[in-house]
């Protein structure tokens, strides 16, 4: 009997295919939007998580500036210098390695080619802290670091853009006024969350950067890798204590530097992603609600239009419940159609969106199931009133209806 009813409902829906399609459009859009949002959102979260895993879960970043500003936002606080880096490395037992870094966006020129990229002044500890292997050539020698030689190690993007398939080793690259010899190329790091190319950089010795580019001896960031098996929280506390001491911050005074944990950065990024996903999903959910009202509207019209049919069914012996079921099933089937199309559309949009944002496409079966269940629920909720109206009709009046 229920299959019979479903078959009848499908028939009724296809009898008015265009109107049925327009009716379910709201549900289609709602479901598609929710699924696309959640899929892309989850892809982003996954990307952030895997980025963090790649950066190293044990990596901390120390930067000058007041709290709540994120790494790199100095906010007028005094910069670090290389002695701070050494102090962290030498005085804190849980630290495996601490590396200085100064960065600046600059144009790298090679012959007619030029590329705006991030120039990072650092030393070999940076490669160690970030676990970045050299793919081609070699890292800096100690002597080059000590003397601040004009040598550089490239990220894969810089190599590709400037040298193409040619061999970059031994060639000279011009950065502003200095010319530096390429000694190595790092291994590909890939793209981070939110599409940031992590291979778009040129590494130069810290001293070379300070003397020839910045003209001072500041260190903007300190990357700290904590030993395996040591709690990063404990290491963060120790670094904070040490830096307060070194920067002579009295008790009760606020820190003028930040220690960020990659987990923290990840959770901030994930938090942003989640809030955005939530907001957009809320908008999508409203459109689902509107879609449901659309279904109710059309079902009411349909009940009125089919008054005579209802009269006939009642006359030949349909019980109230059977007429009710017929219209309810019709509403449910209608919104399930909407849900089904919405799911397909949503997953497609999700795949396209993930591809555009360069995050992994990770459809969640749970959300697909929820969307499907939710569309059924919409059918029940918004189909109930019209169905009841149909079932309660007086057969005599219904048969007379023109």
């Amino acid at each position: 009997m229920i299959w019979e009813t479903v078959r009848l409902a499908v028939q009724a829906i296809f009898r008015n295919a265009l109107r049925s399609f327009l009716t379910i459009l709201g549900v289609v859009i709602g479901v598609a939007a929710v699924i696309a949002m959640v899929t892309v959102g989850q892809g982003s979260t996954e990307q952030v998580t895997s980025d963090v895993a790649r950066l190293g879960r044990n990596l901390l970043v120390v930067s000058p500036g007041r709290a709540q500003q994120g790494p790199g936002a100095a906010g007028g606080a005094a910069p670090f210098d290389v002695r701070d880096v050494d102090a962290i490395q030498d005085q804190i037992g849980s630290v495996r390695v601490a590396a200085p870094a100064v960065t600046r966006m600059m144009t790298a020129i090679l012959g007619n080619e030029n590329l705006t990229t991030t120039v990072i002044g650092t030393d070999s500890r940076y490669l160690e802290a970030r676990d970045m292997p050299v793919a081609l050539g070699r890292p800096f020698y100690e002597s080059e670091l000590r003397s601040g030689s004009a040598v550089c190690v490239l990220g894969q993007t810089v190599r590709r853009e400037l040298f193409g398939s040619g061999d970059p080793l031994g060639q000279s690259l011009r950065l502003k006024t200095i010319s530096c010899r390429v000694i190595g190329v790092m291994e590909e790091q890939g793209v981070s969350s939110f599409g940031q190319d992590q291979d778009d950089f040129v590494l130069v010795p810290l001293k070379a950067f300070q003397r020839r580019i910045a003209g001072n001896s500041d260190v903007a960031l300190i990357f700290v890798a904590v030993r395996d098996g040591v709690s990063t929280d404990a290491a963060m506390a120790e670094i904070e204590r040490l830096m307060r001491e070194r920067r002579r911050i009295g008790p009760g005074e606020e820190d003028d530097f930040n220690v960020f944990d990659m987990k923290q950065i990840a959770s901030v990024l994930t938090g942003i992603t989640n809030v955005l996903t939530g907001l957009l999903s809320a908008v999508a959910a409203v459109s689902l609600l509107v879609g449901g009202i659309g279904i109710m509207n059309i079902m009411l019209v349909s009940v009125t239009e089919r008054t005579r049919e209802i009269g006939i069914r009642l006359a030949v012996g349909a019980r109230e419940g059977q007429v009710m079921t017929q219209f309810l099933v019709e509403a449910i089937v209608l919104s399930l159609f909407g849900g089904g199309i919405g799911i397909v559309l949503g997953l497609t949009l999700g795949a396209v969106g993930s591809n555009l944002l360069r995050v992994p496409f990770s459809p969640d079966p749970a959300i697909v199931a929820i969307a499907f269940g939710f569309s059924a629920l919409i059918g029940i909720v918004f189909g109930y009133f019209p169905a009841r109206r149909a079932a309660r009709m007086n057969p005599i009046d219904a048969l007379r209806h023109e």
Partner: protein
Amino acid sequence: MPGAQPLIELAGITKIYGSGAAEVRALDGVDMKIGEGEFVAIMGPSGSGKSTAMNLLGCLDVPTSGHYSFMGADAGALSRDQRALIRRNFIGFVFQGYNLLARTPAVENVELPLIYKGVGRAERRRLAMEALARVGLEARARHDPSELSGGQQQRVAIARAIVGRPAVIMADEPTGNLDSTTSQEIMEVLTRFNAEDGITIVMVTHETDMAEYAHRLIRFVDGRIVSDGPV
């Protein structure tokens, strides 16, 4: 012979629509007995209560007062769903306006009562085709009502009425929309079901020609029966 066993019994039936000043007494103390296998015509001027009587007899409506017994059951006291069950199992309807489902092939229209009887799909199709054959329309089974003439549509409606083997057919002006030749065809079909299958027929009509097919004629005026006897 007709009238031997009471199928339908009305005693002191009153039906009042509206209330107060707008009160309309559609039926006013009607007594009637219809036996199994009878062919009864009900006539009367418009507003005489014949359609109201038809709706009560067909268990589509309940009387305001009085006693209505259908096959021994107190039909006046039944709930909506219980009356639906009576209609489903014992009553077939034929209306003036045919009342077929639009955009639905004839055979599916005929199957409709069987769906609610819970008859399986294959059996339903077989019974519907059989019923269509009995009204001479098996060749038109796949046609929608809009592709059929008025007489053909009414024959489909009759097939729908008899497919569930009802005890009685309630025909409300079955020839009202048809020309005289077609009307006669329809009446012959009804007469055949009455004679061959013993289905009781109660027919409301305002055409004397049609009433002559019946065996018994009941005349209504102002909600009362004014005459009841053989045609």
